[in-house]
C-alpha cells in the first residue's frame, strides 16, 4: 500500500523505511481527490489527516472509553472492573495530585488523570503491533501537551493572584537583595516561562524519538544483516548473520526498556505539570 492506500497499519506493504524518514506521517485516505482539486503533485505532509493524527485520536477515544467503562455503575464493594479503575485513579489522585498540589488538588485532578492516561496510551502504541509508533515521537503532539500545561499553570496563577502580582511573584523570588534582582529576574523569567514548557515538550519527544530510533536500529539493522547478506558475495562472512540474529534477540530487551521509558515519561510529565501548578499557587513565604 503506497502513499494512496489505507496505511494505518504501518507494517504492511510499502518500502522499508530507515532512519529518520520512518517518522514521516502518511495520509490516511487516498489523496486523489486532493490532487485533482489542486492540480499539482501533493507532498505527503500537506494532507493533514495522517496515520499519526488517527493514532492520537484513537488513543484519546481509548482513554475516554476506558474511564467511562471503569466508572460505570460503581458499587460499594468494587468488582474487578471497578477495582482496576480505582487502583489507577488513586495512583494519580494520592500519589501525584494530593501529595504535590495539596488541599485544593481536586480541581486539577481530571486534567492530570487525562494527561497521564493519554500520554501512557500513546507511548504504549510504540510497542503495540497495530501501530508500532509512539505518537509523541512526532514533536508537534508533544508541543500541544506542553502548551496545554503551560496555559494551565499560568492561568491558575493569574486567576489567583492577578496578572501583575503573579508575574512579579514568578520573576522576583522573595528574599533576594534588590541589586541582585537585575540578575535574578531575567533568569527566573526564562526559567519559569520559557524553559519549563520547552523542556516539558522536548523531554517527552526526545525520549520517545530516541527510543523508537534505537528499536529501529536493532530491528531493521538486524533483519538486514540477517537476510540481505548473500553467501555468494565476495566478502561474505557468517559473522554478519550471527550479528543480525543477536541484534534481533537484543531488540526484545530494547522493547522492554521502551515499555519502562514510556510509563516513566507519562508519569514524569504528569508530576511536573502538578509541580508547576503547585508552584503557581504557592504563597510567598
Amino acid at each position: 500500500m503506497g502513499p494512496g492506500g489505507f496505511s494505518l497499519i504501518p507494517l504492511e506493504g510499502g518500502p522499508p523505511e530507515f532512519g529518520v524518514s520512518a517518522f514521516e506521517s502518511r495520509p490516511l485516505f487516498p489523496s486523489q481527490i486532493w490532487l485533482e482539486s489542486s492540480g499539482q503533485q501533493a507532498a505527503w505532509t500537506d494532507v493533514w489527516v495522517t496515520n499519526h493524527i488517527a493514532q492520537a485520536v484513537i488513543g484519546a477515544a481509548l482513554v475516554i472509553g476506558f474511564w467511562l467503562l471503569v466508572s460505570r455503575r460503581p458499587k460499594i464493594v468494587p468488582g474487578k472492573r471497578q477495582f482496576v479503575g480505582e487502583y489507577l485513579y488513586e495512583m494519580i489522585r494520592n500519589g501525584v495530585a494530593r501529595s504535590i498540589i495539596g488541599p485544593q488538588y481536586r480541581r486539577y485532578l481530571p486534567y492530570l488523570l487525562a494527561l497521564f492516561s493519554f500520554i501512557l496510551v500513546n507511548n504504549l502504541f510504540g510497542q503495540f503491533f497495530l501501530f508500532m509508533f509512539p505518537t509523541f515521537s512526532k514533536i508537534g503532539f508533544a508541543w500541544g501537551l506542553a502548551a496545554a500545561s503551560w496555559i494551565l499553570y499560568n492561568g491558575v496563577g493569574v486567576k489567583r493572584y492577578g496578572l501583575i502580582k503573579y508575574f512579579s511573584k514568578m520573576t522576583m523570588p522573595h528574599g533576594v537583595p534588590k541589586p541582585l534582582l537585575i540578575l535574578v529576574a531575567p533568569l527566573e523569567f526564562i526559567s519559569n516561562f520559557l524553559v519549563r514548557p520547552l523542556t516539558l515538550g522536548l523531554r517527552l519527544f526526545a525520549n520517545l524519538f530516541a527510543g523508537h530510533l534505537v528499536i529501529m536500529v536493532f530491528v531493521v539493522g538486524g533483519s538486514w544483516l540477517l537476510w540481505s547478506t548473500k553467501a555468494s558475495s565476495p566478502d561474505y562472512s557468517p559473522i554478519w548473520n550471527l550479528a543480525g540474529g543477536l541484534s534481533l534477540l537484543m531488540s526484545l530487551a530494547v522493547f522492554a526498556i521502551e515499555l519502562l521509558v514510556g510509563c516513566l515519561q507519562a508519569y514524569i510529565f504528569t508530576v511536573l505539570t502538578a509541580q508547576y501548578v503547585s508552584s503557581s499557587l504557592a504563597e510567598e513565604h
Partner: protein
Amino acid sequence: MNLLEIVGSINMIGYGLATLGPALGVAWIFASVINGTARQPEARGAMLSTAWIGFAVVEALAIIAIALVFVFK
C-alpha cells in the same frame, strides 16, 4: 561493498559527552532522596517534591543540548 557506512555529524559524540553532567546531577538528586528516605521515611513526600523541581532544572541542560545537536549540524 560498503556494508555499514556511517555518515553524519560528529556532534552526537559531543552530545554524549555533554550528557555526563546532567546524568551525574540527576543521579545525585535521586541518590540523596533515597538516602534521606532511609534516614527519615516520613519526610519522603517533601523531599520528592523538591527533587522533581531539581530534576527538571538539571535535566533541562541535557534536553536543550539534544535540541542544539539537531540545530547545529
